[in-house]
């Protein structure tokens, strides 16, 4: 009987130690869920004019943003924030495996040459993707991007209403998280680092 009590105490003690050790480690970091809906390949034209297949992004952790360069408010603000984040990662030598990609849904005005000049101002490492109307329709439906032409602006160009999320893709080009454009840069950095 005495042995049974001692064994029970020993087992309970061991359990307590295990529980305390787990608590001591803090909350376990949950891996970001894999989006199983936004799956597929795409092909576009990059800012150098070359064809660009989604496979080229394999091995990189990607931040992808959809917009049009004639948008004066959200788009440049978001690209500037991406540049800020990327420069932070350069300082900590984590940028080598990170790629920022801007995808336009206004290929008529956002030609490769235009994208090249536009994006280089934010950061020369950024990739810009444009293409035919079909290319744009394919990639936007793949990532459920909503955009709608809303008529002409003062310069005769198209105005768009659009959803604005920053997409985080892992090294296998799987979508792991969507951030609202105003999301905290530290939150994006933390999630991005979990994929590096």
């Amino acid at each position: 009987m005495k042995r049974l009590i001692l064994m029970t105490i020993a087992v309970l003690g061991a359990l307590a130690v295990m529980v305390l050790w787990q608590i001591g480690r803090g909350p376990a970091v949950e891996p970001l869920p894999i989006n199983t809906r936004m799956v597929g390949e795409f092909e576009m034209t990059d800012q150098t004019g070359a064809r660009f297949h989604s496979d080229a992004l394999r091995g990189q952790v990607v931040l992808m943003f959809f917009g049009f360069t004639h948008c004066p408010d959200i788009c440049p603000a978001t690209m500037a924030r991406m540049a800020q984040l990327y420069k932070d990662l350069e300082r900590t030598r984590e940028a080598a495996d990170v790629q920022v990609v801007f995808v336009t849904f206004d290929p008529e005005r956002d030609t490769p040459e235009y994208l090249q000049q536009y994006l280089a101002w934010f950061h020369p490492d950024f990739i810009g993707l444009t293409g035919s109307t079909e290319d744009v329709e394919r990639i936007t439906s793949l990532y459920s991007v909503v955009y709608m032409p809303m008529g002409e602006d003062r310069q005769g160009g198209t105005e768009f209403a659009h959803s604005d999320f920053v997409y985080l893709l892992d090294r296998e080009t799987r979508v792991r998280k969507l951030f609202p454009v105003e999301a905290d840069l530290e939150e994006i950095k933390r999630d991005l680092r979990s994929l590096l």
Partner: protein
Amino acid sequence: MICVRYFELALKTVLLAALGLPWVSHAAAMDIEDGWIRAVPPVSSTTAGYLILHNRGDTDRTLTAVSSPVAGAGEVHDMSPQEDGTRHMHHLPELVVPAGDAVALKPGGKHLMLYQLQRPLEIGEQIEVCLAFAEGEPVCGPFEVRAP
């Protein structure tokens, strides 16, 4: 002595009424706080401007037009969320600034739109922007070009 004091006071009152009050109720009625313009890549011909517009007068004022020496055209815009979660920018022909009140134009919302930029804008430089109203004189002020 008392007589002189009263005379001085009366004189001051008359002077204020003659010079000060009309100036206060017209020219200084509208004032621009923290005006700035978003720097954009040199290849861009469009940008946005932001400010807080104070109406210190006693009548409502309606902002109707925007102009700047660096832009071929200007408009007041608003950003409205659509039912599908997208946001849409559109021309706001009239923006009322109620008497004694202020309206903030800020990123993601109402903004000044500058089209046909004549030259690239440098971060840190001051750009003159003029605001025209349905009633009264236009108001101009320096807007600082800031990093996007």
